[in-house]
């Protein structure tokens, strides 16, 4: 006595968002049925386990059949097999490409290779995201990476155009792709306190201001790599710390501006040269691929940690960085205004984003 076959096919494909999420989350059919039985939303329908099982099976089958299309979202719009209203298609795609930030945080900056894929069960254990879901998310990263890697033009738009994602999700993917491409170090213990959103923000800044595309959309090169020339030019900023006069002058200008405005003034005054040196050193070393990868760990070790131990507030830090940047313009001998602005703009917003517990 058993149901040998049980299918339901609608002319318009029926998609239950709740079941879709359960499927995306990697739950088995029986788990999903149990969870649906427990959820309140369905209690009013008085659905029996049997009905739910049948429904869940149908939905899972539908999703499995759709999955092939979701791998290339533009196909979903002009395939003929499933009649799905446009807004539902968008939902399917968006949800399919959505990812757990905890998971993404683990993979961030890692090479999207088979090796990493093997580590997914560890990540799954650590993050509590089901292995199935981890695999899907990882494959999504890889797929997006592969497609946009070689494309010209703005990264976010490329992701958006090829995968029909929402703006915010496309930005997140851009961050993942950007990190995976430049292989930024994010796994060190000292960086553990930083969330995916923190890094995604920083990635956004880097993409917007430090890549080739940031200067010229029409450039041959892509958005994925930092602009080599710019990184090379950053060496010129060394003058700010190497020229003692300039360093002193810069310090006095900043102190003048900040006096009475920040709580940690004395600490700032005492540490100014170290802090400035740290920031300039980071800038000058960025020609090295290895040092580019260490950008975030350097920012934390060399700048954020000292400030934190001196108990700077975010307000203090904001004021300091603002004036540290702006006063450099008033230095007579300093000729690299544009370069300075481009560098400090990003560094400032990154530091501010990263400056928390």
């Amino acid at each position, binding site marked *: *006595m*058993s*149901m*040998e*076959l*049980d*299918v*339901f*096919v*609608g*002319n*318009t*494909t*029926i998609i239950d968002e709740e079941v879709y999420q359960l499927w995306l989350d990697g739950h088995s059919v029986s788990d999903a049925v149990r969870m649906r039985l427990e959820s309140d939303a369905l209690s009013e*329908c*008085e*659905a*029996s386990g*049997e*009905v*739910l099982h*049948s*429904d869940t*099976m*149908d939905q899972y*089958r*539908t999703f*499995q*059949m759709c999955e092939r299309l979701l791998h290339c979202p533009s*196909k979903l*719009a*002009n*395939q*003929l*097999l*499933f*009649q799905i*209203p*446009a807004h539902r298609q968008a939902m399917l795609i968006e949800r399919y490409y959505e990812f757990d930030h905890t998971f993404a945080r683990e993979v961030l900056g890692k090479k999207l290779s088979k090796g990493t894929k093997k580590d997914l069960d560890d990540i799954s254990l650590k993050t509590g995201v089901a292995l199935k879901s981890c695999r899907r998310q990882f494959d999504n990263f890889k797929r997006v990476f592969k497609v946009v890697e070689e494309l010209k033009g703005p990264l976010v738009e490329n992701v958006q155009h090829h995968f029909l994602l929402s703006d915010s999700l496309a930005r997140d993917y851009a961050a993942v792709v950007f990190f995976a491409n430049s292989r930024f170090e994010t796994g060190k213990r000292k960086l553990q306190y930083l969330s995916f959103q923190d890094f995604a923000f920083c990635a956004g800044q880097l993409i917007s201001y430090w890549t080739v595309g940031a200067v010229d959309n029409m450039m041959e090169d892509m958005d994925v790599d930092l602009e080599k020339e710019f990184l090379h030019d950053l060496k010129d900023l060394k003058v700010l710390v190497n020229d003692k006069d300039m360093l002193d002058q810069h310090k006095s200008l900043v102190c003048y501006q900040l006096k009475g405005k920040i709580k940690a003034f004395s600490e700032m005054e005492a540490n100014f040269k170290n802090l400035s040196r740290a920031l300039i050193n980071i800038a000058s070393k960025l020609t090295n691929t290895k040092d580019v990868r260490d950008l975030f760990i350097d920012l934390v070790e060399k700048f954020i940690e000292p400030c934190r131990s001196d108990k700077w507030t975010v307000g203090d830090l904001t004021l300091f960085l603002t004036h540290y940047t702006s006063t450099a313009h008033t230095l007579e001998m300093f000729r690299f205004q544009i370069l300075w602005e481009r560098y400090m703009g990003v560094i400032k917003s990154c530091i501010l984003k990263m400056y928390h517990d």
Partner: protein
Amino acid sequence: MPGKLKAKIVAGRHLPVMDRASDLTDAFVEVKFGNTTFKTDVYPKSLNPQWNSEWFKFEVDDEDLQDEPLQITVLDHDTYSANDAIGKVYIDIDPLLSSEAATVISGWFPIYDTIHGIRGEINVLVKVELFNDLNRFRQSSCGVKFFCTTSIPRCYRAVMVHGFVEELVVNEDPEYQWIDRIRTPRASNEARQRLISLMSGELQRKIGLKVLEMGGNAVVGYLQCFDLEGESGLVVRAIGTACTLDKLSNTYTPATAINPCNSSPSKDIKEAGFGEEAPGVPLSSGPPTPLRAQTFSSFSPSKSYSRQSSSSDTELSLTPKTARICLSPSSPTLQSKSSPIPTTKALRSTTPPPLHVSQSDTAMLRKSVSFSEDLLLAASGMGSGGSAGKEAGPLKALLRQQTQTALEQREFPFFTLTSFPPGFLLHVGGVVSARSVKLLDRIHNPDEPETRDAWWEEIRQEIKSHAKALGCHAVVGYSESTSICEEVCILSASGTAAILSSRFMQDSALDTEHRFEDLMSPGCAFCHIPYDELNMPFPAQLTYCHCCRRYKVPDVLFTTIDLPTEANVTGKGCLIQARLCRTKKKAQGEGNATAISNLLPFLEYELHTQLMNKLKLRSMNALFGLRIQISVGENMLLGLASATGVYLTALPSPGGIQIAGKTPSDITYEQHISNMQKKINDTIAKNKELYEINPPDLVEEVIGSPIPEPRQRSRLFRSHSESSDEVSELDLSHGKKDAFVLEIDDTDAVEDIHSLLTDAPTPPGFYSCNTEIMPGIYNWTSALQMFTSVRVFRLSNVNLTNQGLNKVFNDLCENLLKSLYFKLRSMVPCCLCHVNFTVAVPEDELIQVAVTAVAMSFDKDQTQENGRQSIDKNLMKAITENEDQLQFPLELSAESSSNPLNSAKGLSEVSGPLPSARVSSLEKASPLPEGRSRSLRSNRSYAGSSVTVVKMTPLSFIPGTKIIKYLGIINMFFIRETTSLREEGGVSGFLHSFIAEVFAMVRAHVAALGGNAVVSYNMKECVFMENPNKNQAQCLINVSGDAVIFVRESELEATPPQPHSASAQTSSSGEGT
């Protein structure tokens, strides 16, 4: 060379990777029609090839155009080995052969492979040039329109309803040919698909020929089925109703407006030919067209039984089954009461064909007679039988004389329609049905399918005689079906005995009055008994109609038709199902056939009892859309009866259900019974509330109704005293005379009661019915969801009792419904309409249930009353509008009843006498639909853009929209097979994707025709076979429907009212574009 078919292969997309090395494909296309094949160039190394081929031209007979599909094969070019097939597309070009349907087929078609399913898509353009200078009425029937819709299609008007057409063709099943042992499954499947496609085309062409002979231009309610008889062959058969249709308003090709009278010539000629046979039939004034005269000159009334059902098409077959009802109000006429032509009793004596099992046949005959008894006895409220039905036939002679019309002379006055133009259906007698068990034998000569023809002939004769016994001269809502298991085949036919209007033969001026009378009179007329109350064919309780108080009505009415729009219904309706499963010993050959035919009467009797009980339990008194399916397996018989129960205001309120025990002495037993009784009464009360059945209070009714004449009143009172049920209808307490008594003296009865009470009520917000419209719901929104659900249940313990089986089967259906309600919960409040269950016993221990239905949301805020009123108003408006559009009958009869245009070649002259204002408004009207069509088309051809949304519905309409064009019939047959069942997700995964693929292919074809919906969609066949041990499965699906273009009513409102532009079909029907 009467036609030129042109095809162009534009491009492909999403092709599968055929070359693993390059991950690409070198695709090219073969285009084949008949025996001619063209090839495109190879488009190397691409999954999205752009062939952009030249126009491939096929010069062919139009006969072939009708029979053959255009076959497109996509292949992967391989330099060293044979080219690999990617898949195929079959395109039925029939829609292009009618001037009114589609003009071009253009769009993306899924490339289908019977092993791999859909593998990419191909963009194709197809056109047909028909040469008009030849007499194409010889072998082909181009231009006859086919509709699956079982009512007059929405944008047409029926000029004449000619009557029943049927045809069947047989062939050997390629699957069972010797060559099948050496060819691949793919080749075998494709041979089958192609053969069925060919046979369908041939069948359609032959039916078309018959229609042309009858003088019609369309087939409505076209139902084509195929019987897979296994070793003994493949039968494709079709029935339909021949009509002459007029287009109401042709929004695309304006200016061909013509006087509707022009469509009558064909009819006139026929009248001339049949003059002596139908003296009462109207003679109209139109002069015969030469063509018609020629065509019909060979008619001779003496050929009253020259049933020409063979497939030989050497001569014009002169089937005199041209039962027709003239709907052309312009023709002057009289009500024919007359024509004492001897009824064709002789037909009964058809010599039994050698193959049939005479024993089972006689058993069958006896059974089916007793069946109509069962039904009617049950209807009378008594479970036990008399034998009144048997002598009923002869007694009807008198009545028949009274009701005799032209219909009587027709061989089969059958109509596959289920809903009718207002005023067409006069009275309904009840369901008539007949079944016959036959032993299949190899069809020796496919060109002479006489055995199968004779089988159906017998059944139809039986149906006809049943109808006569009910005092009816016609059968409406007629359908036929088969169930085959090994070499045993059950043939079934059923319909509703009815009396149809002869009023439509009258003059148009009179017709206006009558029409108004129809609308004014409460919709109760069809309930009035057609038989003589003194000579009732069965013992039934008659009462005076609760609406008009003038005529008698039965206490229960069963029909196979849709609820007439004018019917007065109290409350809402609901789906009622009777389900039954009976074990049967395994047997072979004749023994098996005998066993089955012995079981059948009991099965039907029980199904009817169950239906009646469930109807009473819902406090309803009529069933519509009744469909009884009997399916035979090796060791069981399944019976499933589905219908929509309603409370007809005209019929008396049903009594309650009373339970009587056999051993009244036992106290606990008594208690048990009274408990049950209480439960039943509670359920009835609950149901009354649920379905809003509050029959109007009798007293009020009398006051509110126009005061009857004294004589009538006295009669009314007499009826009170006689039937004494007027009081009892107000409460349900048992003990009343009319209460339905259920005796629980054995386990069967207990089982019955259990099955009664175990039917779960539909969840809140849901309603269901198996008819087109749900009484009591009128404010539909446009949200609709058509779906198909299939379940197969395996019975693992072999020795199940009847009861055990019953429970399993009942649970299977109930759970399926529950699942549907759950899945569609987001559409609440909604109604599942046209719920169509099909059961089958594919293997020993398997029960298969397939459901196709449409869920439609409605607006519950609007109160029911308002809804009802507005719909009534709409209906009225629609009718009058239609008439206005036609200038007919009011204007037409006044201005131009003696119109000089009455010549059939008046097509070009038409616009002359038309008021010029109308013409200009017509031109004004055209831009919008024109633009619409253009936008539709551009949507289609815009590659890479989103796909045209195609709605599908089993109903003949889409709420909130207006169908502006019928593009042709969709009739598709697919086979899918797999040898990697597990890899495709098991049987469910396999069937799920196959059904989705079938939907996709239907949508693609409709979109390519320029349409945006399929109406009257039906999945006629879903044969599923599996062999999990071999990891194999196979499935066959046959679907049909009408491709249409609809526009939202809101969009239409912007345009000025559509002017009259009905064009005459008789002369222009065959003209291709």
